[in-house]
């Protein structure tokens, strides 16, 4: 939660700086965010590779557990397809790309604004922040009515870190492993799926 607020603060500070127009030319003209994105992806890779805990989690698991991220991907895409019927100004491709963030707002928003447009990048930022915050708030309720996978499903890629404590508390510690696993799989897939959705067959 604190992490999300800091991120929103940086984003808001950027928006205000942009609106004020008090920016040096070099900052606007060069494609700084592209280089920063390269750096982010490299570091994100190191984080995944160096995390011994998550690799051992993946090794100790039976096949059934793959159903969870697969179900989250399928369910998310079906759900946002229905959402897209309510949003005539966005194409299905655009809505699917936002959904493919699975709560990983920092990466998906930057990715989408580089690949597609800043406007859709902001939709991705807000939508995926909503997904994380809703998971933090409603996991107790969701688990009560929709079973112990509900918090993991709602959390998407965030179920490996930011929403893990609340999931582990309400679904039980034996579901924490499933939660971490599903979150890792989705986190790794986010950049690939967003790229695929926005560029394939275009």
């Amino acid at each position: 939660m604190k992490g999300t607020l800091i991120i929103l603060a940086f984003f808001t500070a950027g928006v205000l700086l942009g609106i004020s127009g008090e920016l040096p030319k070099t900052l606007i003209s060069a494609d700084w965010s592209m280089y920063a994105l390269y750096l982010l992806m490299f570091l994100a890779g190191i984080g995944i590779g160096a995390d011994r805990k998550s690799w051992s989690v993946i090794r100790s698991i039976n096949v059934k557990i793959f159903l969870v991220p697969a179900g989250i991907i399928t369910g998310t895409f079906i759900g946002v397809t229905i959402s897209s019927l309510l949003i005539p100004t966005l194409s299905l491709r655009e809505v699917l790309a936002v959904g493919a963030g699975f709560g990983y707002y920092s990466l998906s928003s930057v990715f989408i604004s580089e690949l597609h447009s800043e406007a859709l990048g902001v939709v991705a930022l807000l939508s995926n922040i909503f997904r994380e915050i809703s998971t933090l708030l409603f996991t107790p309720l969701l688990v009560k009515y929709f079973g112990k996978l509900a918090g993991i499903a709602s959390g998407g890629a965030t179920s490996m870190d930011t929403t893990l404590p609340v999931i582990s508390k309400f679904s039980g510690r034996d579901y924490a492993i499933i939660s971490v696993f599903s979150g890792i799989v989705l986190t790794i897939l986010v950049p690939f799926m967003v790229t695929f959705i926005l560029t394939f067959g275009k």
Partner: protein
Amino acid sequence: MIAILILMLSGILVGLALGKYPITLKINDKLLNAAIYLLLLLLGIGVGLNDKIIDNFYNIGLQALIIALGAIAGSVVFCWVIYKTFFHLK
């Protein structure tokens, strides 16, 4: 965009090699946070300079909310079926 995916994969390989030193993850987390803050600041600046987004902020927020609700509802219902069928056997 291929460059980005290759960078991520090479990062994973570097991480696998450096993972035996616990300090790697600590330093990497700090750098990763700094990179995320920088990127969101830059995204914010781009948005602030873009009048079309600023004038439509309410609409954009509403669209984001509708997509988030669809994503959550879809995955929760789907995983409910998976839970009932494969996990809740006892």
